[in-house]
């Protein structure tokens, strides 16, 4: 059983990455080296615990990566511009709460809730972007302020209690059911994971093949030069933060669907995890460089690490210590790799 599922996972991973390599732009091959840390972790935990590579646990890891992965994708755009977004966690929550308001309080159809969550995210992103682009407030502070603002608003709007999606029967499906499982009953990969990968592919296309992506890199490289080239820098910046916000809306839907509720107090602290995933994935905090594939790998490094330490029943305080050390080492590995290449 263990052997079979192990093999299964490996080929899946192999195929996936091959697809991604073709998909995620020309520097992808080089970036695949970022797998090294991930593979090392996987190997270590497989040897350390027979449970780790079992299909159930792998599915658990995949599921637990979804939310952080999506948030990390949102952060990737912003970080490539040389900015930062500390509000992603609480924005996710606020979007979930807004979905709850539309679906549970107002009893509207599910698709409206989905649209509302994403629109809320986009709107909040546009506000952050405007603060940054028009009012010249440093991204760190603008999004820190937004983080607090949204945290408060989530509590206000929800009346400080969770909103349950009892009226919307299909809501949990968004994240928990498995479309793949219908076709391959042995591989009930939850939809959340599909959404993560679909979003990653989409984000990769946007980043590498559209004007928005081009300006994302350009702004991070030299904003003044872009401005002097006659590009409407402010508008693009706002658009990028808006895009990031709408991706947070997707994260909000995923987490709400997974918990079948909007938990208004949740969210703070998630931003650091997302940013860590982005940087572990090789995106530079000083802007101008980064890939979605790297981010996804970074998110997996984080969740594999967390899961593995749990599986080994490492004492929780030591888990924190180890996670801190591994984050540093993973980024260091990435730095060494780039120095060599």
């Amino acid at each position, binding site marked *: 059983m263990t052997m079979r599922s192990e093999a299964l996972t490996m080929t899946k991973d192999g195929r996936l990455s091959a697809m991604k390599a073709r998909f995620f732009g020309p520097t992808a091959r080089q970036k695949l080296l970022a797998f090294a840390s991930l593979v090392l972790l996987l190997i270590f935990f497989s040897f350390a615990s027979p449970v780790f590579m079992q299909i159930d646990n792998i599915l658990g890891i995949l599921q637990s990566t979804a939310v952080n992965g999506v948030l990390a994708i949102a952060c990737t755009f912003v970080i490539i511009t040389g900015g930062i977004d500390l509000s992603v966690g609480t924005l996710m929550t606020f979007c979930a709460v807004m979905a709850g308001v539309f679906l549970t309080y107002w009893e509207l159809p599910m698709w409206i809730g989905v649209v509302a969550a994403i629109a809320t995210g986009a709107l909040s992103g546009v506000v952050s972007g405007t603060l940054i682009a028009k009012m010249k407030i440093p991204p760190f502070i603008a999004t820190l302020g937004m983080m607090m603002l949204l945290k408060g608003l989530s509590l206000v709007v929800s009346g400080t209690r969770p909103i349950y999606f009892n009226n919307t029967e299909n809501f949990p499906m968004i994240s928990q059911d498995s479309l793949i499982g219908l076709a391959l009953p042995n591989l009930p990969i939850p939809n959340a994971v599909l959404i993560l990968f679909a979003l990653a592919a989409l984000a990769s296309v946007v980043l590498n093949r559209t004007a928005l992506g081009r300006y994302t890199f350009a702004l991070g490289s030299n904003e003044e030069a872009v401005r002097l080239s006659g590009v409407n820098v402010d508008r693009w910046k706002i658009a990028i933060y808006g895009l990031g916000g709408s991706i947070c809306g997707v994260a909000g839907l995923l987490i709400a669907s997974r*918990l079948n509720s909007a938990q208004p107090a949740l*969210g703070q602290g998630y931003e650091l995890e997302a940013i860590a995933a982005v940087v572990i994935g090789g995106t530079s905090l000083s802007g101008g460089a980064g890939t979605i594939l790297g981010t996804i790998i970074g998110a997996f490094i984080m969740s594999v690490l967390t899961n593995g330490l749990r599986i080994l029943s490492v004492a929780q305080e030591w888990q924190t210590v180890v996670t801190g050390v591994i984050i540093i080492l993973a980024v260091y590995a990435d730095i060494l790799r780039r120095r060599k290449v």
Partner: protein
Amino acid sequence: DDIYIPLISKGFQHQFWQAVKAGAEQAAKEGNAKISFEGPETEAMVDKQIDMLSADLAKHPNAIGFAALDSKAAIPLLKKAQAEHIPVIAFDSGVDSDIPLTTCTTDNLAAAGLAADKMAEMIGDAGEVAVIVHDQTSRTGIDRRDGFLNEMKAKHPNVKIVSVQYGAGDHLKSAEIAKAMIQANPNLKGIFGANEGSAEGAAIGVKESGKKLVLIGYDSGKEQKEAIISGAMAGAITQNPVGIGKCVVESALKALKGEKLPKVIDTGFYWYDKSNITDPKVAAVLYD
């Protein structure tokens, strides 16, 4: 093979949870079982708790102890446990479902109600009172707050709650909140701190402000015990966290042996103050 029972709690850094852990470890030792104990950093992190539950289920444990942050969110995983015939023992607050074989719990609402009665008694059943709670959205926070507020409203109409604020169980923040409350309400007669950090922080705030007022705490802890002995704190409610921990593991072991369990096991709560703190029955449930 050893029997393995993971406990997924609501937290791990607070003394309360550490005491639950200690109780569970004690019972596990007696019953020749192995346990692990894990909980998210804050009681808001519902999804992290679900991840923990998921990882623990993957270990194919013999039984599971679970203190749900949001019981509805955990139901799919609990169903999975049921399908795999893993007995689930709920603790602290109940899981809204009939999957858990039993729940080791205290009635937080009633316990906070008792705190309200004591407070009213000590301030002469009239006057202004403030409440410092550790969390605005978690079950324990809500229950303790509402238990206190409802009891006052129902039984002590002359006692006015002038402020309810939340300090995340952080001693420093709770101390600042207490000072601000005292400052803003010069006639304040009492403060209720709804968990260890809130109560101990409030004690610091009261001391720094130099005022004398009735301070009632919740949970136990070295500082709180000393404050009660010294008179800085009038008294406190304690649950029996060590008992809760023991109850979880013992119930799980019983379930594995096929014994039938009652739907709820009340581990009880106690009022303690200067007069009864050394009483062996009370001393047994205190911890630090």
